[in-house]
């Protein structure tokens, strides 16, 4: 450790670092490109990407045309989830409209809907959902079933009032959406039907994000994505520049060792990128109002490790490329899979089983878990240490690889 530190602060490293700092200082475009685009991207991704299921366009075929059927429509469209998009005369018309992509869902109310309700018979309503998007379909289906269930409970509460006089028609008031009441003739339910509450009443409670804000999940994932993409891009650019200019031979001929050259190259970038991470944290806090439940130092530590692993990805790419163009091209091979196999946009559990283990070698996955765990849930080091370890391991392996490749890059 002592020898490492001595090497770290040796005069050679300091001299090389000064050179790098001067180069960065004179390159104003680099500094700007490290601050402006990431901030914009974070804002853009956080606001544009949302899996929310609201305002599904609902088309209706109402063959019953009675107060009861209108009430059902009212119950369904009063929530934010569905928006009334139009009435249709036949289910064929409704089908065509869904087929043309003008509707997301449709409901067909049969002609005998209110008659069946009044006679206490079961009546079936058909719901058509455009299930192209699996997520929208699953959540939409949940909404419809939940709403109908609540409506049924409400209807059942009306029934006992009529139960006293079997066979006789009685007036039952069904509350409607506007607050006024619609009086309906309702015949009591005969036979074994008993009005009672459902046996099991499930009460979901949403912890950590009771408002169910989508942006918190996306923003914390995109944070890691931006750190990795930007730091690998900047690092490979800086390393490849020496090679393109041909100055790398001079560096290799100097008394500085490979590790010293790489450390000196990396440190200034590291500080610069850490500044970027701090800005991103501010954006997450101010722009998206994410809660900061945990210890912010853990996030900063994770960000530092994440930046380092990003830089190490960049240095490895640069040792395999001869020009800035080739380095960029290689990053086209590396970055897209890195981004999708990260769980930045979707939960890892939603990936197929054979891809899930790959996320373990992805620094974005580890960092996203740290940020989400710490900021949103307040997890501490006892919960998150495996992910810190993962980041560290990735960084060390990649740096060793680039040191090993560094001397060999002169052909």
């Amino acid at each position, binding site marked *: 450790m002592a020898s490492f530190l001595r090497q770290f602060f040796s005069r050679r490293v300091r001299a090389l670092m000064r050179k790098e700092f001067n180069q960065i200082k004179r390159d104003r475009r680099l500094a700007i490109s490290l601050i402006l685009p990431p901030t914009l991207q974070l804002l853009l991704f956080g606001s544009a990407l949302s899996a929310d299921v609201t305002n599904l366009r609902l088309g209706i075929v109402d063959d019953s045309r009675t107060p009861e059927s209108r009430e059902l429509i009212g119950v369904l469209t009063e929530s934010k989830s569905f928006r009334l998009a139009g009435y249709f005369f036949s289910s064929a018309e409704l089908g065509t409209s869904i087929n*043309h*992509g003008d509707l997301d869902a449709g409901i067909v109310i049969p002609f005998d809907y209110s008659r069946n309700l009044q006679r206490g018979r079961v009546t079936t309503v058909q719901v058509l959902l455009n299930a192209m998007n699996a997520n929208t379909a699953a959540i939409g289906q949940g909404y419809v079933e939940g709403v109908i269930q609540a409506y049924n409970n409400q209807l059942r509460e009306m029934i006992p009032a009529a139960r006293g006089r079997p066979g006789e028609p009685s007036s039952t008031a069904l509350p409607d959406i506007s607050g006024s009441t619609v009086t309906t003739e309702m015949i009591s339910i005969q036979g074994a039907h008993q009005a009672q509450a459902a046996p099991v009443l499930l009460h979901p409670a949403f912890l950590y994000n009771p408002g*169910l804000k989508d942006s918190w999940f996306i923003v914390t994932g995109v944070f890691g994505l931006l750190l990795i993409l930007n730091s690998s891009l900047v690092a490979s650019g800086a390393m490849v520049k020496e090679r393109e200019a041909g100055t790398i031979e001079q560096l290799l001929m100097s008394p500085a060792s490979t590790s010293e050259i790489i450390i000196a190259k990396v440190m200034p970038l590291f500080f610069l990128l850490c500044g970027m991470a701090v800005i991103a944290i501010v954006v997450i806090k101010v722009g998206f109002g994410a809660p900061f439940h945990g210890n912010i130092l853990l996030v900063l530590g994770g960000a530092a490790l994440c930046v380092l692993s990003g830089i190490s990805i960049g240095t490895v790419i640069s040792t395999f490329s001869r020009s800035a163009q080739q380095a960029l091209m290689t990053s086209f091979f590396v970055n897209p899979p890195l981004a999708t196999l990260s769980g930045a946009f979707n939960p890892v559990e939603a990936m197929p089983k054979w891809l899930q283990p790959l996320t373990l070698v992805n620094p974005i996955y580890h960092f996203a878990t740290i940020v989400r765990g710490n900021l949103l849930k307040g997890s501490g080091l006892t919960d998150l240490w495996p992910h810190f370890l993962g980041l560290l391991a990735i960084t060390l392996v990649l740096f060793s690889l680039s040191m090993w490749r560094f001397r060999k890059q002169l052909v």
Partner: protein
Amino acid sequence: MRRVIAQTRKELTQIIRDWRTLTLALVLPLILLVLNGSAISLTASDLPIIVQDFDDSTTSREFVDAFRASITFHVVQWATDKQPEYAFTSGEAYAALIIPANFGRDILRDSGSHVQMLIDASDANTAKLVAAYSGQITRAYNRQTADVMQFQPVQTSIRLWYNPGRSSKKFYGPGIFVLGISMFPPLLAALAMAKEGEQQTILQVFVSNVSASEFLLGKIIAFVVVALAECILGMVLLFTYFGVGLAGDPSAFIVATVLYAFCVASFGTMVGAAIPHQAAAMQAVALGGFLLVFLLSGLLFPIENIPAGLRWLSRFVWGRYYIEIVRDALLQGGGWPATWYKVLIIGVIGSVFYGLAWRTMRRMELKY
């Protein structure tokens, strides 16, 4: 015409001779299609949940079995005396089902029992899914245990159209397919065009008898060929691995594909003509081809969720229309009546790109 074809041939030969560009053109899009098409999915299955059963009766175990039987959840062991929050902070579970004491007795007495489901909502979408699925399981359980007693006046019969298995692959596969075509052919086109500017070989074109439009057309046709080749390979993959098929009349889709290939090839050529540096041109294409299509075309999430201040931008994103056409052709089968104006828009945007590329070429000629 002969000059156009000669230009196209030269361009294609250059692509085939450079293995890096060739893999970029044909292999990488396929790898990405398989990888991203299957990795991107929002509907998680096999989510770990914990159960705290304070009743531990036959009835409560039956209820837990209903959760255990679903493919959405799997129950992980958790001691009853440990706080469920620890399972969330350590990331071991997504939800906790808490069954109160006397659950079984209350059920038998018909008085109803209140069960709590704590859900980790740090991922809002998964939380909503968990709530929806657990609600469905509970309703099914209720129906089963109290089928005669429970009277449900209104029943729903839900039909899921176009993707009845709710498979994410079928939705995201076509989207990623479009993303690949929006990214790689224009990238290659931009690189080829910028290279002419960087190496000054464009001067030879200026002094030859090739006109600006002939030169551009030759280049664009070459990259249209690349895009179509990529398209055919991608379609093979979509038909086999992703299990989608042509849902209806494919003529609109075929016309749109050719127009879209023209559109992206013109886009790349335009960028390459405007920015005669390969690295910078590559970044511009990454911005236009990747970021815009990724963010503003409804690839991952519905366009309606984009805030209104940004949503109007998506009207200009060429990928958006093609994604809708591909999804229509492969899943919905609406054909011409559903997509004619989208095909038209792609053609218009493509012509605009071509016009801009032509103008830049003419200006460039004056500059030298």
